[in-house]
């Protein structure tokens, strides 16, 4: 039992640096009207991957709801607002055709595995460590430009760390 605790502690200790290692460049927070956009990023693409996901957290400090209705980027022929979900063991994805409502006083998070900005018809790769500029449009607040840092996907803290010596 004592040994088990020790291994668990060791595991936690060993696991910690791996997590701290992932230097994550953060998006500069931007405001448009009463909306605050933060923690944005995009996933780096695999070779030949024609699509990619972009993510951002939107906080509405205003008195009225606003709706994210569009996004565009020089890198993508088309951008849409999508929601992904796992239903049992099936991945389903839907376009939010009416846009994404951000209710007054609330925060909506676009994150991997859920809501995302979908880069489609990419005309180049999204490269880890670079930035991608995206203009998002809200029904009321209008346009705002985001500089999303591009990040490699993380894999449960293990593997893919060819650059480390672990």
């Amino acid at each position, binding site marked *: 039992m004592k040994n088990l605790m020790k291994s668990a502690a060791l595991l936690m200790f060993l696991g910690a640096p791996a997590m701290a290692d992932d230097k994550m460049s953060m998006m500069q927070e931007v405001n448009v009207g009463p909306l605050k956009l933060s923690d944005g990023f995009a*996933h780096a*693409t*695999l*070779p*030949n*991957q*024609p*699509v*990619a*996901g972009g993510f951002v957290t939107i906080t509405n400090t205003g008195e009225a709801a606003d709706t994210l209705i569009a996004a565009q980027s020089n890198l993508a022929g*088309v951008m*849409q607002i*999508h929601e*992904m979900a*796992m239903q049992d*063991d*099936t*991945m*389903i*994805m*839907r*376009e939010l*055709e009416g846009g994404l409502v951000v209710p007054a006083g609330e925060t909506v998070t676009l994150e*991997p*595995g859920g809501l*995302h900005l*979908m*880069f*489609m*018809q990419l005309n180049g790769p999204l490269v880890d460590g670079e930035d991608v500029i995206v203009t998002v449009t809200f029904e009321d607040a209008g346009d705002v430009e985001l500089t999303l840092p591009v990040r490699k*996907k993380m*894999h*449960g803290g*293990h*593997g*893919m760390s*060819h650059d480390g010596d672990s």
Partner: protein
Amino acid sequence: MPRLLRIVVPAGALVASAVLVWLAWLQPYLAEEDVLKLGHGDYSLVGTDGQPFTEASLQGAPSAVFFGFTHCPEVCPTTLGDIAGWQDELGDEASDLRVFFVTVDPERDTTEMLGDYVGWVPGVVGVTGDAAEIRAAEKAFRIYSRKIPLSDGEYTMDHSALVLLFDDSGRFVEPIGYQEDLDRALAKLRRLLS
């Protein structure tokens, strides 16, 4: 009347136990028989390694089979990354393991397209072919996929996101779920490869 009961009660009990035996034992057993047929069927596809991919491809060495498509922003890249992670963790233990990434979107996923897409993970073979053959393979592997139209003339695919594990005789063993815990996934792979 009591004599009649003496017949009816045991007969009822017999029927009830037969139903119980069916529910508890035979029915799951039959379902299991079905599961053992997973991957078996009449389909003829082609791999990015230039080799044909049929039910016979599952024999000879253990394999992991995943269905996906390249226009997939999240699940497919994540799963490929997970597979690369498993290979990293298992090292030489995984040298026998073959990984097949079968497209559910043959319309867009040609062998050229798939080759680069999966090529960065060592040993992963992309598999595509005629739409009818892909549908036949999906049926054989019990994979669900459905084309979902989007605006701007685009479309996406809903699809099952399990990694199916087969032993070296081509028999289905068990699945690894999407984003399943690394240690559990590794334990399943070690069982398969031992």
